[in-house]
């Protein structure tokens, strides 16, 4: 309906392969980003930043990472939160031992460390597929949980076992107000999302998808499973690591291993199932969904309770949350395996064909 594509022809491969091929899409995205940077800081409340926006952005990053692995490369991981914790603790220790390091550097290093661990736990994927791999990653989850819980060195021998971070300082800019934190995270997430998009449209991304869609054929045309799978694990874990570091430093401030439990891993998985396997956009949508659902439930339920004249306990809210998640997972797997992102793209196609139905 809003698309006017006549005259938007491509006279070079560069143009043809650019990210947002259609002018109207470019406008939309730029408007969105501009809004996020310029308008949101004035519109949103501190609560919004702390409870919604910042967590949303950070888990989006983690979800993107997981999506690269599960959605694009078809390798399941039930232990991604563990890789986040690796990132978080790596960042913590880096800051503890090298206080002078710039936060960005810390982030990246944390990412690399986590990528390393990720690769190690990705090794089984060369031997085993699907379900089996799921268990392997569970092993990662529990083992890493244990390591951080028990090995004092990682927590810098803090008696309680929980760690807390100093304020973030990059190149003189001390990031402490929610708005500042939001802007920093936003910038980082956008950059990483862009990188992810670039990866999946290049030959590396294609080799991942090839492994996902038809691994035998992929090998026959010369794709090395070792490279494809391990690179996917590494990159995915890198994203998780960075997200983990942000989660610890920006969102939590102080945390203990429980902060990155198996449930976190499962939630990440849900984000990409609901949001959309094999879609960067989907990772954002899914993240938004999973972040917002509990909050809305906690807001809405009491109200509804008052209407029907009974009061729902917070316990009930959390149980309901469980049920809804569960139901949604099944619903999407059955009805729309490609998640909300697919619905989005269908909607877009409809707009392009408007007024025709197909």
């Amino acid at each position, binding site marked *: 309906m809003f698309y006017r594509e006549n005259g938007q022809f491509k006279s070079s491969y560069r143009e043809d392969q650019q990210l947002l091929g259609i002018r109207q899409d470019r406008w939309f995205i730029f408007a969105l980003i501009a809004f996020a940077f310029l308008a949101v800081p004035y519109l949103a409340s501190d609560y919004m930043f702390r409870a919604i926006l910042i967590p949303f952005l950070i888990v989006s990053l983690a979800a993107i990472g997981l999506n690269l692995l599960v959605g694009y490369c078809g390798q399941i991981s039930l232990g991604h939160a563990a890789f986040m914790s690796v990132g978080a603790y790596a960042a913590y220790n880096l800051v503890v031992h090298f206080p002078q390091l710039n936060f960005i550097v810390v982030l990246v290093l944390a990412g690399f460390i986590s990528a390393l661990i990720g690769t190690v736990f990705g090794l089984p994927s060369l031997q085993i597929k*699907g379900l089996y791999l799921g268990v392997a990653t569970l092993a990662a*989850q529990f083992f890493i949980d244990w390591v951080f819980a028990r090995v004092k060195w990682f927590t810098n021998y803090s008696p309680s076992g929980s760690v807390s971070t100093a304020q973030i300082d990059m190149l003189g800019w001390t990031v402490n107000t929610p708005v500042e934190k939001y802007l920093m995270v936003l910038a980082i997430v956008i950059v990483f999302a862009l990188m992810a998009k670039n990866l999946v449209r290049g030959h590396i991304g294609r080799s991942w998808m090839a492994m996902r869609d038809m691994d035998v054929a992929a090998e026959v045309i010369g794709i090395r499973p070792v490279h494809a799978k391990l690179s996917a694990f590494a990159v995915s874990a890198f994203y998780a690591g960075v997200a983990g570091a942000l989660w610890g430093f920006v969102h939590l401030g102080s945390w203990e291993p429980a902060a990155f439990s198996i449930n976190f891993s499962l939630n990440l*998985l849900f984000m990409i199932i609901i949001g959309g396997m094999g879609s960067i956009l989907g990772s954002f949508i899914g993240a938004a969904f999973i972040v917002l659902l509990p909050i809305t439930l906690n807001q809405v339920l009491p109200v509804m309770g008052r209407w029907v004249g009974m009061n729902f306990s917070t316990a009930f809210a959390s149980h*309901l949350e469980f049920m809804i998640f569960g139901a949604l997972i*099944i619903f999407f797997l059955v009805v729309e395996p490609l998640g909300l992102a697919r619905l989005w793209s269908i909607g877009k196609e409809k707009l392009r064909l408007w007024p025709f139905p197909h």
Partner: protein
Amino acid sequence: MAAKKNGPIAALGAVLAAGLLAPLFTGSAPGFYIEVLLGGLMAGVLYSLVALGFVLIFKASGVFNFAQGAMVLFAALALARLAEWLPGWIGIPAGYPALALAFVLAAGIMVAVAWVIERVVLRPLVAQDPVALLMATLGVTFFLDGFGQTIWGSNIYAINLGISKDPTFILPSVFQGGILISKEDLVATVIATALVILLALFFQKTATGRALRAVADDHQAAQSIGIPLNRIWVIVWSVAGFVALVAGMVWGSKLGVQFSIAQLALKALPVVILGGFTSIPGAIVGGLIIGVGEKMSEVFLGPPLVKLWDLAGGGIENWFAYVLALLFLMVRPEGLFGEKHIDRV
């Protein structure tokens, strides 16, 4: 995919065996050693019970049922609460009668659950790639957890099988001080064994059982000889539900019915990896290995480790099972008793 030689697996076995026997030569009291061993076996029995449900479902529907743990929790909750409520509702005397009736009802409920799952999850997702099904069962897990706690409540409930919790000493003559074990564990073992035998009979002797095996061997074949796949699945999941109920009962009576059961049930995963996804004996043996391994590692490997790296406590049992399974996957993905398969282009 399948590992070619059995060298590594032998090596792994050797290491395990060594690990098992090591304590004896590092001068820990044999009595204590045996206690730990038995304790491990008991825990293993429980794992096996859950793993059993796993294997059944995997054999019949090729589904890696992440929700088995949730089913255990759900069944246990149902049993516990019904046993508690029934007397109030229909004035049936509390204790065994109520428990018995509750057991029957709970079994019924699990059948219903199985039926729903087949309708809502399996049938639409039939012939989907296994990972999708795995995730679907994740969904089931969450739903069951939430649903169960919503209707049954989310506190800790007791299941009283009326077995005295006080420990008894056996073979005082052999080891000084004798060996301490709880009746409960013995009962649990008995029940588990009974259940296994029951299932064995079911699979060997009954027509349905044989049908199930046919399905497990080859879906198309099964269908082509006119076995309605959907009904088979309902049955299998019901059986799995029943197994879950038994497991829930035993565990509930031991630890009290609470959310952690669902988490504990995750242990069943490494068990089936060890035993092989398709082998019932595998589930049992695997369960025992894991059970023993955990306890042993916790008791005998933990302290030295803690000392060595100055850890904040042991807790090795949290990951031992998984890491063991992981090693296993590397050298023998099909597990101890599972069968290999080649994928064709």
